[in-house]
């Protein structure tokens, strides 16, 4: 390896005077105009929505078929995980192709189709070179209209999913995510159960249930074909008409906000431990139920959470990482979905400072009262969004995701230009008001995943009340 002697004198840096001009950040010209992509939409007679964002720079198209049905549509505990498994099963065989043949044909087109289910919806997605788009649509049409739901495939897929869950149940991050959702939303809330269900629910599913779920939800009125990239709205409508025009289906009854009883107010402060013996870190999360996407307070709350924990330079990260060195990172975000949403804070800290780190998080929440969001924080967080938004939509898959979230969450096509307008009008009072409404320490639920003995001992000095011990393995 290098044998160069250490000798800082070899590096004759200019004297301070010569470089003094570097002392001030450069004066720069005016900000470029914000560029927001144009989201266009049409509808076929069948009720199928067609959404397009044109980006012809490269011969690529992202093809997404989005359904407004996700795990929130699972109405009873016995259905938890049903949406996810049903949509996965649609790719296990369609028409005269089995699951392997479908995968082979997508591979011939240089792509792979995946289906992803979340709380609000599900999406079948592939990114293709434009020359393969028509062929990709043919395969998509088969999956939507002629899934075979063969018994043997179902039995195999069910076992696969059970193995997936067994693996996930040992992953500390997964444990943290599902425990947090359940405790923050409450276990009877549409967002209060895991998207993939539990071992018990998945083991009890029958093929009939999946077929019925498919018939009810995989219908054109509930769906959008989203094409982003090198394609125009006219081309997309023509393709959708040719390939999916004959797709019919009963009227589904999608979840509406009015159908859901959202518990008023939020539970009192509580602490829960999810035991994972032997870990030398603790995953500390804290969450509070807040607001759905499109709520009038949404942007003010996002600015508040960005300043508190969203940015690298936020209070939480600067305190826990840069000042104390307790963690690799501490962050927060607003998870605003169709029916409801939450503020989530999370960090992994070394186990022997679990108590001190939690104490700092709670202090920072209290501090929001004594030291409300400052003018500088307000400006940094709003500028960050206004200056970076033009870059949010780079890439056809990213554009597809943005369109999908507009569709699933029933937001206006002008969602992002509305956001820019709203950010320009926000005031620091709006942001402080949102903090006061949504970020009260006494409403947070705290979830600690890690070694139970260490955590219990660490909590003893905080006098926060007795923690609840949660065993997720029993579900």
């Amino acid at each position, binding site marked *: *390896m*290098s*044998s*160069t002697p*250490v*000798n*800082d004198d*070899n*590096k004759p*840096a200019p004297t301070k005077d010569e*470089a003094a001009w*570097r002392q001030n*950040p450069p004066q*720069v010209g005016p*900000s*470029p105009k914000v*560029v927001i992509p144009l989201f266009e939409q049409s509808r076929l007679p069948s009720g199928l929505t067609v959404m397009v964002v044109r980006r012809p720079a*490269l011969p*690529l198209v992202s093809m997404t078929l989005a359904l407004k049905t996700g795990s929130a549509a699972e109405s009873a505990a016995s259905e938890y995980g049903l949406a996810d498994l049903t949509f996965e099963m649609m790719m296990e065989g369609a028409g005269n192709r089995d*699951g*392997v*043949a*479908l*995968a*082979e044909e997508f*591979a*011939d087109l240089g*792509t792979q189709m995946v289906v992803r289910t979340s709380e609000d919806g599900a999406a079948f997605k592939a*990114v293709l070179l434009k020359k393969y788009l028509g062929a990709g649509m043919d395969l998509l049409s088969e999956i939507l209209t002629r899934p075979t739901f063969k018994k043997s495939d179902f039995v*195999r897929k069910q076992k*696969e999913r059970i*193995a*997936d869950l*067994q*693996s996930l*149940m*040992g*992953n*500390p991050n997964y444990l943290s995510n599902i425990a947090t959702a359940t405790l923050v939303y409450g276990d009877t809330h549409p967002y209060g159960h895991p998207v993939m269900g539990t071992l018990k629910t998945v083991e009890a599913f029958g093929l009939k249930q999946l077929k019925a779920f498919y018939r009810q939800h995989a219908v054109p009125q509930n769906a959008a074909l989203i094409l982003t990239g090198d394609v125009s709205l006219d081309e997309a409508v023509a393709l959708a008409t040719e390939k999916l025009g004959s797709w019919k289906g009963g009227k589904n009854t999608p979840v509406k906000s009015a159908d859901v009883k959202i518990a008023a107010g939020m539970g009192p402060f509580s602490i829960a431990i999810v035991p994972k013996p*032997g870990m*030398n*870190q603790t995953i500390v999360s804290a969450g509070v139920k807040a607001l759905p996407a499109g709520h009038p307070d949404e942007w003010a709350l996002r600015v508040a959470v960005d300043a508190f924990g969203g*940015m*690298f*330079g936020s209070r939480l990260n600067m305190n826990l*990482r*840069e000042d104390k*060195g*307790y963690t*690799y*990172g501490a962050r927060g975000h607003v998870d605003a979905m169709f029916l409801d949403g939450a503020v989530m804070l999370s960090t*992994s800290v070394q186990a022997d400072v679990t108590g001190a780190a939690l104490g700092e998080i709670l202090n920072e929440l209290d501090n929001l009262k004594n030291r409300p969001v400052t003018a500088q924080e307000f400006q*940094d967080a709003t*500028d*960050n969004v206004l*200056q*970076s938004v*033009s*870059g949010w939509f*780079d890439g056809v898959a990213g554009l597809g995701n943005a369109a999908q979230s507009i569709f699933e969450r029933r937001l206006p096509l002008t969602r992002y230009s509305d956001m820019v307008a709203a950010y320009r009008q926000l005031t620091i009072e709006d942001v402080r008001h949102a903090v006061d409404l949504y970020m009260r320490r006494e409403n947070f639920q705290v979830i600690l995943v890690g070694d139970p003995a260490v955590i219990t001992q660490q909590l003893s000095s905080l006098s926060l009340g007795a923690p609840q011990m949660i065993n997720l393995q029993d579900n």
Partner: protein
Amino acid sequence: MNHGFVHTLILPLLMVAAITAASSVGAANEKEPDNPLAIPFEKYVLANGLEVILHEDSNLPLVAVNVWYHVGAVNEVKGKSGFAHLFEHIMFQGSGHVPDDGHIGLLEQIGASDLNGSTGFDRTNYFQTVPANHLETALWLESDRMGYLLDTLTQEKLDRQREVVMNERRQTTENQPYGLAEESLWQRIFPKEHPYFGMIIGSMDDLTAASLDDVRHFFSTWYSPANATLTIAGDIEVAKTKALIEKYFGQLTGQTPPSTAKLPRVEIPESFTMRYDEPIAPLAKVQVSWITPRLFAPGDAEADILANILTTGKSSLLHRKLVRELELVQQVSAYQMSMAQLSIFTIEAVIREGESPERVLSEIDNVLASIRTHGVDATLVSRAVNRFETGFFRDLEQVGHVADQLQSYNHFAGTPDYIRQDLERYTSVTAQDVATFATTYLNNEHRAVLIAVPKGAVTPAEGGDQ
């Protein structure tokens, strides 16, 4: 296509007339209208040795500013594992004219995205995409830490980032399913003297031992302009950009970097199997690794294609066999980790409850034996090649990725002008090449096997209860 893993600062998860460059080598590559798979660029070198690569793209009002230092874990010396990455963290803690907490804070205020630094085995990079009017701000920040990092270095900065990195190690290795098991297999393959041994993140002992003198020495040795390449991609005016680069970087000086020393030979002279008591994951895992040709060497593209054929998608050979037909594993994946000195090809499978790791290993062996004996179907190769072709276009979608791609070619292939040759590496692979690769490299004599079994679990003996 897996060019080694990296450790990052933040978990993933944001004028006057032109001055003539002192020694322009001006490689240029004009975009051909009928071939969109090209990245036009201009490359030149400043008098102090700093390489510059410029790429214009005015689709969006954004500019990616990306600096590669030609140093990585490969340049660490014994007892200093993890140092290149720890050093990368210190690069964000302020410099001569930038306040200690100013670097990331300022970039966030101006709306930088794709903002991070990462340390690999063979290189370290720093990058941000900024609104086009803030190109100069990014150049100011990058040049200040290139020239004046040591002016404001303190013991406290080092200590704090040492703790952050130790927590990064806990989070990304020690508390990840199979993290420690994989590290211990890696450290059986690489001799202790080899700088890849520390797996970039390094050991807690070596991190503890890092001193301020180490930081000073590392900076003086490796962070000079002559050991760096600055790439700017996006909505720029070339003449104006060149003038700004000269203004901010032209006066910086530094040592001539030493060349990377000859490294100890790495081989697996005899196959071995190691067992590991897995502390985090509830299911057992089997992993098989071989030493394979380095990035861009003959055999490297074959490895990528074979990995794709083995485990990408439901129709892939191993997924089909192990997940769908035999129902033995929860997931299986194969990948070539391509590095500058050598590569590692790995097949890993997470085993379902009650199944035996030995049985899974022997089924993997059967599939490989069949490939060595009968070859692979040409259709499988062309499918994999189609996937890579789509991937090449997708890599051109964002200016930040384009900047990094140019850097990667410049560093590893010796020229930024390499995208078409790179695609050609894949399109020219035949079914015979894939079989030859499997026979030559993926043999039973020189491989490393890991069997990680959850602590306290009992697995069936060989053959299992089938």
